[in-house]
């Protein structure tokens, strides 16, 4: 029994939605950060699914680019989170009050 491609796409869309919802609603910088990674992985799943249904290698190679970018984002992002944490001992964005929003 094969699982239809549409299911993967729906799963990816749901994952992306969960990630986007998390970025908008959560207040911890680290969790917001994890949500962005979730969104990127949903994108990867979408690319792979389309690549399989179209038998096209292009979509699968794209996944590697997205993974590398995600890893680079982690490096920079964690650096910034650490820089903020050193000053505040908190990563909640609610306490970032220097800027008026």
């Amino acid at each position, binding site marked *: 029994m094969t699982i239809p491609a549409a299911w993967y*796409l729906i799963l990816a869309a749901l994952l*992306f939605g969960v*990630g*986007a919802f998390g*970025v908008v609603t959560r207040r911890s*910088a680290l969790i*917001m*950060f994890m949500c*962005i990674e979730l*969104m*990127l992985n*949903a*994108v990867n799943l*979408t*690319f792979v*699914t*389309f690549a399989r249904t*179209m038998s*096209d290698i*292009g*979509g699968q190679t*794209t996944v590697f*680019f*997205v993974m590398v*970018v995600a890893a*680079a*984002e982690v490096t*920079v*992002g964690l*650096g*910034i*989170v650490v*820089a*903020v944490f050193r*000053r*505040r001992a908190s990563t909640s*964005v609610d306490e*970032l009050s*220097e*800027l*008026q*929003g």
Partner: protein
Amino acid sequence: MIAATATLRVSIHYLVILPVLIFFGASLLLLIASAMWRRTMPTWVATSTTVATSLAVLVVTYFQWRGLDKSGVSTTVAHAVVLDGFSVVATAVIAVSLGLAALVAHDWAIRENVRGPEYQILALASTAGAVLMTQANDLVVIFLGLEILSLGLYVLVAIDRRKTVSAEAALKYFILGGFASAVFIYGAALVYGATGSTNLSSISYFLGSNVLLKPGLLYAGGALLLVGFAFKIAAVPFHMWSPDVYEGAPTPVTGFMASIVKVGAFAALIRVMISGLGTQLATWRPILWVLIVLTTVIGAALALPQRNAKRLLAYSSINHAGFILVGVWAGTARGSAATLFYLATYAPTVVATFAIVTLMGGLGDERHSLESYRGLARRQPWLGASLAVLLLSQLGAPLTTGFYAKYAVLASAIDASGTILALIVLLSAAIAASFYLRWTVVLYAEPDGDMEMSRVVVPRATGLAIGLGVAMTLLFGIWPGPLATLAQHATLYFTP
């Protein structure tokens, strides 16, 4: 047999990607050199490397332009990177902006004691990303360019580690920027699913030769791409981050962001919209229409109550983003040329403006209230007059570049039967005029007796950057012909 080996050989046309290679190579070279340097690398070494790199890229763009006359548009790396007139001119604009921004950052780094070559290394790497965006002919390459541009910039915003406000701005920028990138690449994935390719030429070919029975996937993908771009260019309603980040970032970095990010993002946006999704013009135009109206009017209206120079300029740049979008909305060659002209003139103007704001910020980069500009032109006529010219150019006053730039985009919109849009945008320019004029009047106002104002020292490098910015603003304002012709020629050589 011979044919088989010939197809296996991957040929890369290096002249096409030379600007990207030069910028990124210079960044790596500085990085290695600074590691080998016995002590901290002097700031002037890094700055002169950046300026020399910018000049080198300008020379390369000249040869690329000459090559275009002979052999026309070319693509390389599996048609993912393109060399056309549009990308050449946009690359030249980016190189000029980087050179000016580097000069401003030099004096800022000395004043704030931010030693070492980190600023220039990151700025060069970011610029490589922006140039890649102007040349990208593939959604994935645009994404890579966007990320190379952004990752360097997140760090640049937080480069002054002693300032809490900068770190917070960086975190905010990073989270919203990462979110926007994820939205963008999801849009690319959906477009890939709908059309079978991420290559803009292939997408365009597919959409031109097929009728999509269920275009939902394509529309969703296109909308997500547009949202990703709207975040990057700070179009309303995706602009919330920009005033905070502009305010929190060190002022030279703000100038860098306002110029180079805009050029890169708009160049990629034009390519996606016109050469990728050009067949869907009727679908995306109304969306862009709403986006432009919101961006120009709200950007101008929110700028009115601002009392901080950097926040005011942030809202002003939102208003400008709306103007530049008008040229994209037109969807014609004339519109693209107008957009290119706008970018080419806006970028140096805004770098020079932020150069003066950097100087006025004083030690600690904190004196940014509009009140501190009171009577500047009386104390220092040259500096005051320069700022006045730059502000009037952003307002769109005649004899400055802003006038012709605004005229060109509006004319292209009216050409494409967008008279109502042009009128609304013009109205927003009238709102925007009030705060530019108010600031200019403050410059020439009588200084308050009780306020002790010291003269601002203008260091040589920053002075040069301001001088060049003002000179370009006036030169191409009085005599826009050559640059306008160049922009028109540039769009003739558009992607096949």
